[in-house]
């Protein structure tokens, strides 16, 4: 069976438009991406237009407010397409999902794929305002991202899981991609870090998004997201996510 058959990306309403920007918020470190992407979807009142299904996914549905929801959903508004997930991506789904997503975005002639995540910071407790780290699939993109709002460069390190695979597949496919990371608690939901990323993204996308409501409901969010964080922690253990705390070997 080929990878393409295992993952289906379904557009219930066809996503059309030029220069589309795709934001992916799959759950991982501090649930930063998941919180940020869901918040953007909510604030911009984006329309749910599709979903991703795969045989690897557990046989589950989400029910919200008496509405039946897919686990991995696609939202759209204007130039922005956001992808959110109610569960951490199962390890065996990571490679085929990354591959399918990148080919799909390439077919849509997408302008940029943005992964949002947290960078594990052991001293997070002493950090008032988490710093943003950026990396682009090409040096020109990295330069553009760094110049914006004085973000830090992600110079050396590892990126594990779906975020790393997406960047790699994007480079291979010649798709422009970027990862935006905020210093975050490794396995506590971190709305503060997500808020920093949302502020950064609002500058990058040139749209106004107020992060105040997010920070105000931080306490409640952390309690509500405890289950997802626990599940995500389990999955992160299976994909060497802790490798992100290490530096790649250098022999010179």
């Amino acid at each position: 069976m080929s990878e393409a058959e295992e993952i289906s990306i379904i557009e219930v309403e066809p996503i059309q438009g030029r220069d589309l920007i795709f934001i992916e918020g799959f759950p991982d470190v501090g649930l930063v991406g998941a919180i940020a992407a869901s918040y953007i979807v909510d604030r911009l009142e984006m329309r749910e237009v599709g979903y991703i299904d795969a045989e690897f996914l557990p046989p589950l549905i989400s029910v919200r407010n008496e509405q039946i929801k897919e686990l991995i959903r696609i939202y759209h508004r204007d130039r922005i397409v956001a992808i959110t997930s109610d569960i951490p991506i199962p390890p065996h789904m990571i490679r085929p999902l990354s591959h399918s997503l990148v080919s799909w975005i390439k077919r849509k002639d997408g302008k940029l794929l943005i992964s949002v995540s947290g960078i594990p910071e052991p001293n997070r407790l002493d950090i008032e305002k988490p710093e943003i780290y950026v990396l682009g699939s090409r040096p020109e993109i990295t330069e553009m991202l760094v110049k914006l709002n004085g973000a830090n460069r992600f110079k050396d390190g590892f990126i594990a899981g779906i975020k790393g695979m997406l960047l790699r597949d994007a480079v291979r496919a010649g798709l422009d991609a970027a990862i935006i990371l905020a210093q975050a608690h490794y396995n506590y939901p971190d709305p503060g870090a997500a808020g920093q990323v949302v502020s950064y993204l609002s500058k990058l996308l040139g749209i106004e998004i107020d992060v105040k409501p997010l920070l105000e409901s931080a306490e409640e969010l952390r309690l509500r997201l405890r289950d997802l964080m626990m599940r995500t922690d389990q999955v992160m253990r299976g994909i060497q996510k802790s490798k992100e705390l290490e530096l790649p070997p250098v022999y010179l």
Partner: protein
Amino acid sequence: MEEWRRNIWRRILEEFRRVEAEISRMEDEFFRLMREAEERSGCITPLYNIYESGDEVRLTADLPGASKEEIGLIAGEDYLRIEAPCRSLLRGGEGRRYVLHVRLPAKIDPQSVKARYKEGVLEVIAKKKITGYKIRIE
């Protein structure tokens, strides 16, 4: 790829998936038992981490919606116990208590324990208890 090689790969992949399914079944059992215990007792087990270094044991626990004054912390030689009311108005939060009782990976000196509560995270740092004989290096 030749047919036989493809078959072998398929079988290896199937085996991987079987193992993954088995592990996830065990994890699921763990989550269920924890959840049921929480529902029955009305206590929330907070997310926590334990870090052990040369001379310290450090524990952090995520206690959103608690307050510094109401956190009860008890330190024993080989355990820490944290109890706190959860003041969040969220469904499942209101009227509940955080309870965490953890065995530590090393013996500590309970009198050395220091703790702080910042932005919903409790951090406890304890010095390891050192007992033994000092050996001179020749």
